């Protein structure tokens, strides 16, 4: 078991590496100079500064943020370009320079040149840490441009809400759809199984934003029925100061009902259908006949014997449902204004706060990868045959 786990774990390192590369490519291609906005907003304090001071400040901040380093361990450039072209940060100047090189370079423009920079580069600093950065491996995603706070401090609370909703909704989805699936497998031609199949399929095709707005319109609308609050996650005034965790939960409960419906409904069809098919496959096997012959009750056979053996596909589904919940939460969070990662991303896009966006992408990709890893482990735990291969 442990050697299998170690093997899987080793395979996940290149995957994580690739995900960080994608995140870094996005981050380094973000338009605008982050230093510019930092210096300009620092400047709005009122003190008059000369252009030279501004330039000095920019150089200072660049050094602090590691932006004066080359991008990657190596770079592939034209032979006509100088090695230290990356040090020019002014976009217009760089454009002029490149145009000049293109004109004068001649044949050297078409010959590649590989430059090795070593580990003093932005990617290494971003991932493993360096000057003024502890690296994303230690949870340092840089500084938010608009809020001037460490990204991880902003995302910490948001991540908790997002994870809370995804985990609760997954538990709810399994809790509701496994009994439905078992009932469907028990009597595949009954009216219940046909009706539930039809309605689950309808629900599966409903876009979540449509359901969300519809729910809000029906149940949080003073004109129709106003049982649930329309937005947010806790009372407007906040919790009481001395409230315990339980009373906080009870306070927040009405806020959670509609979002949880929205998160859960679409995966119901998928999971229950899968449960039904895999259990009905199991029911045809000989060991079920033996169990019946032994005189076990139908309930024990279905819930204990058949379900246990059909758990494998259900675990696979977990690794397909979980990423959907993390990524799909952008929509539901912005409908119900849940302060999660999705809503934070949409806000950050509005204020051109790229470090947050990239952090969200990298974090949720890493979470998804770990969910795959977990599913693999569960798989091996449930079915010992897999460990052998």
């Amino acid at each position, binding site marked *: 078991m442990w050697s299998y786990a170690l093997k899987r774990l080793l395979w996940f390192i290149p995957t994580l590496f*690739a995900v960080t590369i994608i995140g870094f490519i996005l981050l380094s291609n973000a338009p605008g100079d982050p230093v510019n906005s930092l210096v300009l907003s620092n400047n709005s304090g009122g003190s008059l500064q000369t252009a030279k001071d501004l330039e000095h400040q920019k150089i200072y901040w660049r050094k602090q943020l590691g932006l004066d380093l080359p991008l990657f361990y190596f770079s592939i450039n034209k032979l006509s370009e100088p090695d230290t072209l990356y040090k020019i940060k002014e976009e217009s100047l760089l454009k002029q320079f490149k145009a000049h090189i293109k004109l004068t370079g001649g044949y050297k423009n078409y010959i590649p040149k590989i430059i090795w920079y070593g580990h003093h580069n932005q990617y290494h600093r971003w991932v493993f840490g360096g000057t003024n950065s502890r690296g994303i491996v230690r949870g340092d995603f840089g500084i938010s441009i608009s809020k001037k706070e460490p990204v991880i401090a902003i995302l910490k609370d948001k991540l908790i809400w997002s994870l809370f909703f995804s985990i609760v909704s997954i538990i709810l989805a399994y809790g509701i759809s496994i009994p439905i699936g078992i009932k469907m497998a028990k009597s595949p031609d009954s009216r219940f199984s046909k009706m539930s199949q039809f309605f689950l399929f309808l629900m599966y095709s409903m876009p979540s934003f449509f359901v969300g*707005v519809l729910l*809000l319109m029906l149940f949080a609308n003073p004109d129709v029925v106003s049982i649930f609050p329309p937005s947010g996650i806790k009372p407007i005034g906040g919790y009481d100061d001395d409230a315990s965790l339980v009373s906080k939960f009870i306070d927040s409960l009405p806020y959670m009902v509609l979002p949880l419906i929205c998160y859960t409904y679409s995966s119901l069809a998928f999971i229950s259908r899968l449960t039904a098919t895999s259990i009905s496959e199991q029911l045809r096997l000989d060991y079920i006949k033996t169990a019946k012959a032994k005189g076990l009750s139908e309930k024990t056979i279905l819930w204990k014997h058949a379900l246990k053996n059909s758990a494998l596909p259900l675990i696979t589904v977990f690794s397909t449902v979980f990423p959907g919940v993390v990524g799909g939460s952008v*929509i539901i969070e912005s409908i119900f204004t849940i302060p999660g990662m999705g809503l934070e991303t949409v806000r950050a896009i509005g204020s051109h706060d*790229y470090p947050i966006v990239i952090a969200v992408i990298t974090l*949720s990709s890493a979470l998804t990868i770990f969910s795959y890893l977990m599913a693999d482990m569960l798989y091996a735990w449930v079915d010992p045959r897999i460990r052998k291969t």
Partner: protein
Amino acid sequence: MNLKKTYTSFKLILQKNRVLRRCIRLFTFITCVAFLAPFLANDKPLICKYKGQLLFPAFSYKNHVFIDNESINYLMGKDWQTLKTEFSIFPPCSYSPNTIDADNAPRKGPFDNQIMNLKNGESIPLPIKFRHWLGTTQNGNDVLSCLIHGIKISLGVGIFSMLIAALLGITLGAAAGYFQNTGLKIGYIQMVFLIISIFFNYFLCFVIRAEKLSDGFQSGGIWLFYQIGFTLYLWIQNTIIFLWLGKWIDEKFDFNNRLHFPIDTIVLRIIEILNSIPTLLLIIALSAITKPSFSLLIVIIGFLSWTGIARITRAEYLKAKQLDYVTSCKAIGMGHYRIIARHILPNVLPLILVPVVFGLAGAVLIEASLSFIGVGVPLDVITWGSLLNEAREHFSAWWLVLFPGLCVFTLIFIYNKIAVEISKFK
């Protein structure tokens, strides 16, 4: 590919399944509506007679026309309705999606009193042929017209992105399933050349052509497709040239040792990486970096959603490889390419279509979700999602929730139903 064989297998499926036939008929109807949109919902009349001259404004691309030295502006929008013509026939919905009906401006419902302000200051009830059957939006756009013209975008994004995805997914999945880790053999020198070609191609495609590529991303449209397609073409062409060179050297110097090229592992790793990146978030992030456009959306969805197709294709090819007809194809010395494309593909195509059609539904959902939150899509085009977005602040405007939502639901439902029905046929 054996087209005749494929066609007969599809005909068989269609003959057996009534639900599938109905779904495809409905889908064809929706496609026809999308193509006929300019003649179904347009603010210009189809035919009108003005000062004795017959005009066909809805069929014309002109901006204006001169009649008796008087210029008639074809783009006058709502003024067509009050123009004193001898007779005129309007389309069933007499508004374009960008026509602004200021008289019924802030959200008039289908059953509300819709009015029309005449030039002399009088206001009369809106004539029945100009009625907003499904209400208006905040600015006074006609909802029905926006819905009809929105089909084009929803269908287009889905179909074009899935074309890319199917091409990538079927190619890579078939290669992974058919060759697996041991089927493809490659010489040592060839392997070295392959690695060199990656660096060289990077230089060629992303350093020399950097400006053109970024230009494509910024301008969008057909130019983006051209740039990305050309980059891919260059990459593949050069890789083939390098591989060919390596093979030549291998043969020349008689290097007989050959490596297994682990194409199965590589494809599975790529699938895992792509699956772990949340599509919606990536599109949102990319839209922040480049100018959002529908062509960019198509490309991103296409390049991210081939994984499901590749997985199923791989599984089907793995199964098909064991079957007798493939063994006999090999026994008579048929080439790999011919077996993959002409013998296995037509047999497994109906099953590969299942993830493709599910992908269509997924792409429609992504496009609608993005326009719902208003990120990652051009904001000047009114789509089904952006109509729903308007309803978020005004719950009294139920028509802005119900009709666009039902449209998205119907399209996704049809796709899902088609996919499920095809998957039943095995």
